């Protein structure tokens, strides 16, 4: 971590309606503990000045908040029970001269269900369009965690997997072959033990590579069931004519088949092309370019 100077940014939205994604569920997100720090950390720091937006996803209990704290130097409280991070926190740090904003998404087991947490996480990945998404997984229960990794990879290709809790895995006599995992998943994989600060520098390097385009992840997702695949294949060209170049059209098609209200609204309001056009603009404004401000 020596190379990266940390500083605190505004932590949570709520009082400060900053920029990103104005979703109903998220406007309600405000954490009292955090708002004091928010006030403190706002002093003298320009919140809007960062070069890249990163998202932090993961199952509950994978030490996601610990990774977040270790990277940002913030002290978002962590607890060993599922669903501790019920609000979304934001923080910032600097690595190799670039400023990153890190958004800690609620811990979820999946992105397919209709619960509020999953909706927040899903919509941020879909419409917030982070420059890179770090998926934190628990080395001791890799199998369960990979489910979410696949789902994130369906939405975005810019993924770095952080296999956390390696220390605990070692204690339990487990070893994880990170190289193999990376090969099988098609995205960079970094082993880490965030509580001890192990592997964080490598994680940041991997993220920097993905953000700069030096490394282009090629995620390998499992084949969907045939009926679903046919349906998606039929919708895909339609979506692409509607919004040429929309990057996660497959996932949008899938969500349409699931009856996702937010995706429908974005489609009806013709905001998909807007999302794409906006992306072509400066990277600094990456997180401001969200659709969905009026959704409900």
């Amino acid at each position, binding site marked *: 971590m020596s190379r990266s100077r940390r500083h605190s940014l505004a932590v949570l939205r709520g009082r400060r309606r900053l920029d990103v994604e104005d979703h109903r569920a998220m406007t309600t997100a405000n954490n009292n503990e955090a708002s004091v720090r928010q006030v403190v950390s706002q002093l003298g720091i320009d919140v809007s000045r960062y070069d890249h937006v990163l998202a932090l996803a993961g199952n509950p209990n994978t030490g996601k908040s610990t990774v977040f704290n270790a990277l940002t130097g913030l002290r978002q409280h962590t607890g060993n029970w599922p669903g501790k991070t019920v609000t979304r926190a934001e923080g910032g740090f600097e690595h190799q001269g670039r400023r990153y904003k890190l958004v800690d998404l609620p811990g979820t*087991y*999946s992105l397919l*269900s*209709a*619960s509020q947490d999953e909706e927040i996480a899903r919509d941020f990945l879909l419409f917030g369009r982070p420059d890179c998404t770090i998926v934190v997984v628990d080395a001791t*229960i*890799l199998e*369960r965690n990979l489910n979410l990794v696949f789902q994130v990879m369906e939405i975005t290709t810019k993924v770095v997997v952080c296999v956390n809790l390696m220390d605990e895995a070692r204690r339990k006599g487990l070893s994880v072959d990170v190289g193999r995992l990376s090969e099988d998943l098609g995205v960079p994989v970094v082993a880490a033990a965030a509580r001890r600060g192990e592997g964080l520098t490598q994680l940041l390097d991997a993220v920097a590579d993905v953000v700069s385009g030096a490394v282009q992840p090629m995620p390998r997702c499992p084949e969907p069931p045939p009926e679903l695949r046919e349906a998606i294949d039929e919708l895909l060209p339609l979506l692409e004519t509607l919004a040429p170049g929309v990057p996660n059209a497959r996932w949008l098609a899938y969500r349409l088949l699931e*009856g996702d209200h937010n995706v429908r609204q974005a489609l009806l309001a013709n905001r998909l092309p807007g999302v794409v056009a906006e992306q072509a603009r400066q990277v600094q404004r990456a997180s401001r370019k969200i659709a969905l401000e009026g959704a409900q």
Partner: protein
Amino acid sequence: MAAVAGQILAGVLLVLIAGSLAAWALLRPWRSWRQRQERSLFEHALKHLFTREHGGEDATVDSVGDAVGISLNKRQGLVTRMADAGLLRSAAEGLHLTVEGRQYALHVIRAHRLWERYLADDANVPMGDLHRAAHRAEHRLTPDEVAALDAHLGYPPTDPHGDPIPRATGECAALAGMSLTDWPIDKPACIVHIEDEPEVVFRQILAQGLRPGQSVRVLERTPHRMILTDGVEEYRLAPQAAAQLQVAAPPQGEPLDTHGLVRLSDLPDGREAEVIAIDEQYRGLGRRRLLDFGLTQGARVCPELRGIFRDPRAFRIRGSLVSLRSEQASRVWVRPIDESQQAA
């Protein structure tokens, strides 16, 4: 003198203004209440007309009045008001819906059935209470809200009773089923619909444990009773109750053969098993949660812990320890793995 007159005038004016303000404040809720009442009457009447028409019967002023539950002398007035609003036409043989009236009726039915679906899937309201809650909600929902609800639920084809939900475009699939009283003995059937009126009988049926989507067979039919089975339990129904069940041939695929399988809730502690299926009737968020934790077909599962009150049990699923209530665990069918195989 003039000053006194002026003061009196000002006083009178003040009283008038205050009085009219007060009257307005009091009358406004009264009027909106009246409007709501009228709307709900209209909508009930429309639903009645629609059901009659759907069933090929004609509605009359009296049938409308009975359905809505208003006194004899008010019935004609209601029908006239509805006709004035362009919702129905009176003809010699009875009352007919206009195009507009039919659309309106479909909206109300759609709102009702979607709301029931929402209550059942997301809010876990018991089946027996769905109808009454939806009866109130159907008059409050606007078409936009109904559309959003439809989307949120992922466009369910049927409500929890098995009734088709009309589309926003106005199409309404016909109910594909026949009365249980006419279903041949021993032929596999799937319950597609349970009529929720009269409510007393409906609750009796539910109390027995019958649900839409369940696979059943008729074992015995006499003029006094009917015996059904789902392979595990036997259900006895009076003919009146049986008439409220609509059944159809089971959907594609065999019903789950539960031979050699146990429910996850019955699996002894420490015994490993393989997941075979989750009950088809177990839907909504509950099912998705089980899937999210990796309880998919073929997964290994092993009960490890019981809470101090014995009920929730914790299962080792794909490396993590997940606690489930017995109601949930009972929806999962598993095949215990042989001890010898387990050792190997």
